[in-house]
């Protein structure tokens, strides 16, 4: 049996600055997931930064899962992989004062 999978675009052409978080995404059917963050155009990033993978029991209260996805100032792609995450996933993070990125974020899920 071929395993089911799905790619969700959870942010598209969105500008991140200050504190950011992707919308909650339910994925209890999947046993593994990868977040990809693609920087779409040159941005401003004055220090190394990353988005944190977070998990939740209810889609409203979140805890860091421990995986970080690096952020890029220039166009490019980074990723972070997680498994055994329960039912909910999102990314959260903070950018420094004056920093901003325009990104598209993919959540790639597999049974």
């Amino acid at each position: 049996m071929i395993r089911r999978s799905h790619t969700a675009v959870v942010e598209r052409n969105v500008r991140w600055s200050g504190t950011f978080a992707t919308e909650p995404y339910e994925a209890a059917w999947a046993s593994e997931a990868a977040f990809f963050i693609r920087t779409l155009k040159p941005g401003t990033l004055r220090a190394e930064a990353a988005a944190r993978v977070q998990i939740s029991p209810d889609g409203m209260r979140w805890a860091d899962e421990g995986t970080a996805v690096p952020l890029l100032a220039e166009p490019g792609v980074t990723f972070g992989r997680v498994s055994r995450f329960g039912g909910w996933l999102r990314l959260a993070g903070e950018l420094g004062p004056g920093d901003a990125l325009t990104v598209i974020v993919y959540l790639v899920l597999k049974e």
Partner: protein
Amino acid sequence: MRKRRTLPRPVRPVRAPAPPADRLAADSPATLSLKAAVASSDPRLSRFSPLSRILFFDDFDDGFNGWGGHIGNYEGSLDTMLPAYRDLRPPMLSTIPMWDTGSVGALDGTYALKLATRPAAGSLAVAIKRLTWRYAGPIQIEFIFTFKPEASALELLETGVRAFGFAFDLQAGDRDPAPRERVMPHLRYLNALDGRRMEKWQFKRAVEPLRDVGGSGKTRSHFHLAPSGWEDVPDGGQQLCYNEIATKHNWYYVKIGFDLASMVFTAFRCNDREFDPAGIAPMRFPAMPNLSCMLNPFVWVEADGDTRAFLYIDSIVLSADVDA
């Protein structure tokens, strides 16, 4: 608060669907009887009332079944997209988990298709499935669905969902006689508006302006889900079973019939209410390039305040008479 436009124009009478001149062999009475027997013996199908040929039966325990996110047209850059299209939220598969009672689950099985808005008034989530039709005859779509806002407060939250809706995006075949049209039947349940409970069905025949996108002349876009132009379905008020707290869900049934030959509504039902299809009409405008025989059903949900609005769909059946 947005200013709303009302369109008190009369709806033109519904023409009876034209008998198909080129129809393939219709099912014999024996075949129809056998089909009915098979459908009624399957508990998942027997809750539907499909036309003679099922084009798809999507149960979201089996996956997304081709229901994906929606996006506006663009050219050269995503920045060229009409602003209202930029952040339509995508579907997911949900066990309908509640913070207080755990997963609700689907009507049967575990997963429902879920649409979730951002926590902002006017935020939309849309799921669409794209097909083409083979035969310009009657079609019918049926949904088992429920809706609720995110249970973000220990309150009823009955006005958290502004609206949810069901629609088609259709176009004539490339050899069909003029005037070839693109036709978009839209129906929505306006649950609340600006914090006030509304609880009524509406349709939209007003066509939003078509705007050029990009600059090549090949791409145009119009935001058909805009808040303007909605009209009340005659006698379309209906109280649904919202239930008593924000974490309790009841499933509903809706059925929409449409004729691809005459491009008019033929049926509209929600639970115990059958609405007169003569009182509702679709958007109609000249056919556009590259959309011949388009048959796209789509669904959406819209938030009314700073609470996420959710629409859940257990299963969907699209059916047609004879062949489509």
